């Protein structure tokens, strides 16, 4: 066949392919699990650290007050050193909750460490067909990143069972609001979050799918099949009990692995309980400076002091859902914009 004839015969074929096969879109519409109605069931499981049944009672009581039923998984109360049971016990409990159609949302008992040990052993086939909300933060960032990046299914980054206060009488308004924001998220209410203006902010507006979580976990997922997809997205990060040098190093990993180059916006939450530098060796940079030097060549909005992190103000955020971010002189406004 002559080259010219070959070309003329292949063109219509290519056109036919493009209309009949479904090519993956760059950022398809996120899949949002069904919002919860009264009587819906929330499962509680512990894929990471151990927690007792007694410790999750406040969460159970509160969620029942919200009108939900609660199913307590087998890993609650289990203990294998720091873990809530062996890897296989934790896989089994979470897998069962992922696959059980009578459970509408899964709240993790607590963070700690352990999710990355079991993520590859989980089968998300059924979950992808019938998504449900996965709720938690910190070590749960493994699930957020894996699920948001691979399946485009939304998840809820928020306080977990261990953050529900034992005694509501001594709760601060921020704690009350943070816990209530989980209910609002689950009910499908439109969410709006505010943060005060910070002189380090870079003003601007952005619209993009919100993703993020714990910085240590994001570095730990780099180069793996769970790594966070950030292109054209709004990224939020938070961390706790890290050294300043370590925060700087992890930010370099984000930058050097290409996660900061094509963001729509960057949200910096709490970096709490930073470990003190050795005497005479102060690091000499603030978190503000560390962040801004990494993103100085980009122009998207950046905000600090956003109420997400290992702190009282840690509002429920819908990861994998389109949001609008406005960083201005009067402060920061983030709201879901599906």
């Amino acid at each position, binding site marked *: 066949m002559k080259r010219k004839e070959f070309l003329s015969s292949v063109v219509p074929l290519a056109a036919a392919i493009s209309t009949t096969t479904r090519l993956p879109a760059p950022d398809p519409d996120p899949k949002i699990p069904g919002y919860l109605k009264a009587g819906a069931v929330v499962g509680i499981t512990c894929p990471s650290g*151990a927690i007792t049944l007694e410790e999750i009672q406040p969460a159970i009581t509160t969620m029942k007050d919200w009108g939900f039923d609660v199913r307590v998984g087998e890993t609650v109360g289990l203990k294998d*050193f*720091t873990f809530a049971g062996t890897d296989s016990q934790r896989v089994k409990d979470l897998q069962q909750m992922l696959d059980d159609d009578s459970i509408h949302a899964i709240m993790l008992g607590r963070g700690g460490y352990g999710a990355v040990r079991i993520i590859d052993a989980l089968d998300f086939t059924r979950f992808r067909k019938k998504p449900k909300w996965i709720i938690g933060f910190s070590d749960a960032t493994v699930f957020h990143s894996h699920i948001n990046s691979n399946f485009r299914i939304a998840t809820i980054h928020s306080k977990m069972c261990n953050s529900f206060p034992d005694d509501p009488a001594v709760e601060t308004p921020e704690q009350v609001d943070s816990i209530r924001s989980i209910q609002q998220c689950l009910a499908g209410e439109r969410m709006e979050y505010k943060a005060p203006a910070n002189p380090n902010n870079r003003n601007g507006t952005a619209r993009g799918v919100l993703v993020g979580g714990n910085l240590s976990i994001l570095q730990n997922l*780099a180069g793996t099949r769970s790594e966070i997809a950030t292109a054209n997205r709004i990224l939020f990060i938070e961390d706790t009990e890290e050294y300043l040098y370590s925060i700087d190093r992890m930010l370099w990993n984000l930058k*050097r692995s290409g996660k900061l180059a094509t963001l729509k916006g960057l949200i910096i939450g709490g970096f709490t309980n930073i470990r003190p530098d050795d005497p005479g060796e102060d*690091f*000499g940079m603030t978190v503000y400076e560390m962040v801004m030097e990494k993103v100085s060549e980009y122009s998207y909005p950046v905000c600090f002091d956003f109420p997400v992190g290992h702190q009282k103000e840690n509002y429920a955020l819908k990861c994998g859902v389109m949001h609008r971010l406005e960083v201005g002189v009067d402060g920061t406004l983030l709201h879901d914009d599906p």
Partner: protein
Amino acid sequence: MSNHMMKTVIPPSLEAGDTIGIVCPSGYLPAEKVDAAVQAFRSWGYRVVTGKTVGHQYHYFSGTDKERLRDLQRMMDDDSIQAVFCGRGGYGMGRIIDLVRFRKFRERPKWIIGYSDITVLQMHLYARYGIASLHAPMASSFIGADPADPCLASLRDALAGRPLAYEVPAHEYNRPGRARGTLIGGNLSLLAHLTGTRSEAPTKNALLFIEDVGEYIYNIDRMMYQLRRSGQLKKLAGLIVGRFTESRDTVIPFGMQPEDVIRDVVKDYDYPVCFHFPVSHDRENFSLKIGCEYDFAVTPGNVVLRTS
């Protein structure tokens, strides 16, 4: 850019009268702390020049990013310097690695000596340019050391181009086997940190060595999972586990020691593995040529690692 298929570029060995440049690309090092190293290098027949970053301090660092970069760049590019000795690790190489220019260095490679934070530069050199480097003791190891210290002697041998061969006792967790491969590795925290970046080195058919200091055991577990999940453990020729010194545990014990963690993470593979190899942040830190071919033999009786 990255020439994994090409043969490693091995810097020339040093000859008597050659010059070693001392630089601090990361943490602050008081000037007097290089004295012992300087004396040792002179006793080996080398000249020494110290860079501006030695004894210089900018907060935690041995200078601003610009100062550290300029000093390192000068040492790498100056033809009157035949090897670059990093005085100290700490933290800071990762802040300047993307600003270092390798154009001249590639034409005239020289041994870069160090470990810990220097892992960033050493793995970058191998990953991007296929250039070998020396994972070896830094300045503090020379202080108060016996002149006949075998780890320092190994650095002397490496610089002089003598073959390196280590025989170490068996460890109960060792997995026997024989392998030949390109030796790569360094500090586990930094190998994990480089994952997903352009400084991540290819691990296929490599002999990987790892060590760390002061890490929580759960974090060692987490980092080993990152190496595994990013495919860096799957196609190794062998794994050489150094010392994990001053490891920390959580209030509720993790229930495994670093050696248990590592053995568990590589249990699905069948290449030889050895534990307690003398590469560490402690006194025992024998010189290893990153990027060079080694023969690795793990037998019930002992472990032998030698340059091919």
